[in-house]
């Protein structure tokens, strides 16, 4: 498993953001786009093509899975498929976050990044 995770790193920004978007809740494509835009204050706007191309690849890589059982709640519609993060996806997202944090640490040691939060 470990080597499989390492072989997927570094993640493309879109992949990482999608993983983050589905980390806490199952989401459909449009919800992922909105979530990403919100969290980055509009800095990253995924296009539909990039989103679904990434989703397709992530499905193949086993980072996410399609949820057959849709949440019954809020305005669901027939066309939507929901995506859920897998165990592998969680592990990969963690590993990527750690990798990014390590890089920030390195930069900070050279005075290249703001101190703390």
């Amino acid at each position, binding site marked *: 498993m470990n080597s499989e995770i390492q072989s997927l790193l570094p993640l493309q920004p879109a992949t990482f953001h999608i993983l983050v978007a589905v980390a806490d809740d199952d989401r459909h494509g449009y919800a992922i786009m909105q979530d990403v835009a919100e969290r980055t204050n509009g800095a990253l706007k995924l*296009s*539909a*093509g*990039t989103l*679904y*191309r990434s989703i*397709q690849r992530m499905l193949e890589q086993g980072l996410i899975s399609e949820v057959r059982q849709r949440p019954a709640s809020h305005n669901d519609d027939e*066309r939507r498929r929901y995506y859920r993060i897998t165990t592998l996806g969680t592990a990969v997202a963690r590993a990527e976050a750690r990798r990014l944090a390590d890089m920030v640490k390195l930069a900070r040691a050279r005075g290249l990044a703001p101190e703390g939060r």
Partner: protein
Amino acid sequence: MRFYRALLHLYPASFRAEYGAEMEAIFARRRRDASGASAGWLWVQAFGEVAVNAAAVHADILRQDLRYGWRALRRTPSFTLTAVAIVAIGIGANTAAFSITDFVLLRPLPFPGGDRLVKMWERTPGYPRLEMSPENYRDWKRLSSSFSSMAALWTIASNLSTPGADPERVTGAAVTWDLFPTLGVTPRIGRGFSEADDREGAAGTVILSDALWRSLFGAQPDVLGRTVTLDDERYQVIGVMPPDFAFPSRQAEFWRPLQLSPDEKDRTNTYLTVVGRLKPAVTLGDASAEMNGIAGRLAAQFPDQDKQLGATIIPLRDDVPRQSRFLVLVLNGAAGCVLLIVCANLANLLLTRALGRRREIAVRAAIGAGRDRIVRQLATESAMLGIAGGAIGVALAYLTLPVLTTLAPVSLPTAGSPGVDARVLAAAAVLTVCTAFAFGVAPALRLGRNADSAGLREGARGGARRERLRSILVVAELIASIVLLVGTGLLIQALWAVSRVDPGFQSEHVLTARTTLPWPKYAPTEKRAEFYKAVLGRVRALPGVTSAGYISGLPFVVRGALWSISLHGQPEGLADSRSVSLRYVTPGFFTSLGIPIIRGRDVSDADGPKSPFVAVVSESLAKREWPGQDPIGQRFTVAFFERTIVGVVRDVRMRGLEAEGEPQVYMPYRQIPDGYMSTYAPKDLAMKLSVPPGQVVSAVRQIVKDADPSEPVSDIRMLSDIVAQETAPREGQLRVLGAFAFIAALLAAVGIHGLLAFGVSQRVQEFGVRMAVGAQPSQVAGLVLRQGVRLALIGVVPGVVFAYLAARSLAALLAGISPADPLTFSAVVGLVALMTVAGSLLPAWRALRLNPLTALRVEI
């Protein structure tokens, strides 16, 4: 919205089916949110975004397919290697054929605006392409308006003497000053000829080829102003041509001004090669009409000399010897046949393979792969096979080109040789794509259509329709290989027929050499006679030389040199039907070539300018002109004088093994008037040897050097080699066509074997049942053999018809062998029958050894 939906078609169908609806929904939402101005921007964004992502999705799929295909191909190495090898053969053969075709027929000439360059001839009844006489050339040039320029040249050869080195014989051209401007070329060093250089009596100037400049002056740039000696006259070097300049042919090593004399008024003395450059708006047809119009006026004005004169104009690019053009077409036909067989064979191989993979594919379909994905996957595999085979094929073509190059004529005005360049690679790529498509996509589509659950059923089999398709492919292979085999067989027969022809002389152990005596130094006939006497006297005394003699032109080397004879004091030159092959010889020539003197005597040293003029004639002339009479003592007129026949010799094929040629007239070397007929002065030395040639060559060179130190000895070779060269092009053609036919037959046999072997493996259960109910193994094997024989029979009939049609178009190469030659046809049919039986034997043997029990159990 419809536009966006259309845009989504850039994605693969599988991706579109999966995500298209959601993407549309998102786009619709965005458009709703976007205000007026940004709506336009949204469209631009959408377009760019879809284009980029669709390409990326396609690339993803390609990567997957390549990986999957690589694994699938590696699992079946024998299939993969066979398929790649077959593609390589097909692409290799066709790439090589295209390379030659491109070089000989297609590639533009290496001159700027080369498509506007034309070549012109005089045309008279019976002679569509006659060189021009200087006077007609001048009139045509003066009176025509179709050309921006027109120039003439004459191919010459000269003795080149260099201080401190052995003299050398070099080929070049005497050209009018405007030839280089007409072609649009300029020297790389120095200048071209000026009008002043080309005037009669102007000081001698010369332009060297790049090769001659390198060999003579070691490529020194300060060559301008230096002199070279050609035929004992000094010429000042004024320029050096670029290395790729080869005009009129690649033998040309120097160019000097033609310096036509205004006094040359004889319109029947035709020797000029004429090229012109068409004005921009003028078509070939316009120019031809104008030139023929002028010819008509000249014919009316000079009825004696320009009777029935016309003009022939063709693009310079098309001035390819007919034989070469024809050969190239034959080569392409053969290569096309091979490619057809290759495609049929591969399609068969892939169909077989696809059947074996039906379950694998059905499984993929069951877990959600769409039909387009499966077809795409299979097509990718075919493309991988095609590309690998294509690459190896190009390498094969590159390796075989040196052999094929011998089929290209040397007379083309281009310096290079056929090679694998960008054009050839592009052609090979197109060919590979078409081939891969032809053999790969059809089976893929067929299989994709059936990619349903049916394949998962136990014991599912290919239907009768597929079986029929495969049989049709095998029959096509049989037809194509019969065509090639018959063509090869006929060419072999033609080669045998030609090499059996008796040339009329004995070529074994005859050494030949050429010493061309330059004028004006050797214009006096007696001066030449002294040279011959000095050389022959000492050569005959050499140990190992049994006889020696000179002739003005050896058979097969000088094919023309015709003159018409006249009888009873009629003026000569009128009766064209009485043309003879005219030669001047020294004593000893007939003995050296073993040409028997049937009656009378050889020419003699005593036949001098003051003694009666005599001639030795060939048997056929004696029969033609004096039937039933004694030819000895008969008189006729040729070359300005009346002569008496003193001897009759056997006929010789002057024009080569494949042409009957004209009767021959030989005259004594001393009976040429001083300063006349320079091209008829004896120059070819023939020596009959009793020792290997290596033992006498240097002595002969020394003897010539002693007789005249400035005289080069060129073209030292055995007469038997000259005769062998007559059949060399045929042997070359045969090797190529034979190789193609061999490959074709082999592939067809493999195809038959594959089909029958597959049939047996599909019918194991049926055979088992048959044997279980009492059929003998031999009966089952007979079933298989019968299928093979039936295929052969179906292929033979149309194959023989097509082969006959192809052979009829080959007639020009067949040297009189009938295109319906029964021996060849029966041999080929026999060979094909043998091939079929050989291909059927192994499958039949397998059927013979079937154990009914295992056969019935095979699928359980």
